[in-house]
């Protein structure tokens, strides 16, 4: 069985948490979909922390305003996407 890449894991967190398709990810931002509210935001952060075994700073959590920005932030924690 092939293992998921970090990029696939990152996408999977967004798709599962916000119930969106892969085609919707690139432009997805906070509050674009009902599921990405404050509760969804923290669920996504918690899931990313679990998946990548990292602990994000508060400023980074607040800055994580969209899918693309999230990738830049995750890179800071040594996760290669």
């Amino acid at each position, binding site marked *: 069985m092939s293992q998921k890449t970090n990029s696939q894991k990152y996408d999977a967190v967004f798709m599962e948490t916000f119930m969106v398709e892969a085609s919707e990810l690139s432009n997805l931002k*906070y509050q674009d979909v009902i599921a990405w*509210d*404050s*509760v969804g*935001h*923290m*669920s996504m*952060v*918690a899931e990313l922390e679990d998946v990548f075994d990292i602990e994000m700073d*508060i400023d980074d*959590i*607040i*800055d*994580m*305003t969209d899918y693309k920005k999230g990738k830049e932030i995750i890179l800071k924690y040594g996760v290669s996407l």
Partner: protein
Amino acid sequence: MKSTNNHDNFYGHVFDIVEIQECQRNRYPMLFIDEIDQVVPGVSARGKKCFSFNEWFFPAHYDDDPNVPGFIQVECLVQTFIMTFLCMNEYRGKKTSFVKMNNVTYRRKIIPGNVLEINATLNRFKRGIASGSVVSNVGGDIACSAEFVVAIPDVLDTFKPK
């Protein structure tokens, strides 16, 4: 049992219905615990719910076979679970909302006269999101169990994108 005035140190402290309502925002007819007789803040809580035939839902569920609806059993579980962190001064009185529930399992019917004992364990509590597991029993027989993820919206708001 001895009571204590320090609300972050609850060894031997019993939360009665007044104190429970100081900690959480559920109210009649949606308050489904009567007493919390053991709490270790941030770790665990043990609650009790006594079901009498006067409960508002028994005539409707069902007139010829009164028993506690499943969603109310889940409320009993989660209302005990949230006491593991709402007992702490920092979070006392805050509203909560469900994020997820998993593996809800019902093992036995709960009928008028039954006393449900609920044991909740908080596995993780971070930035306003709590996850854990809860098991209830009637007279030692497992009744219902579930795993929950619950959020405190007030706390989450401090982390949301501007």
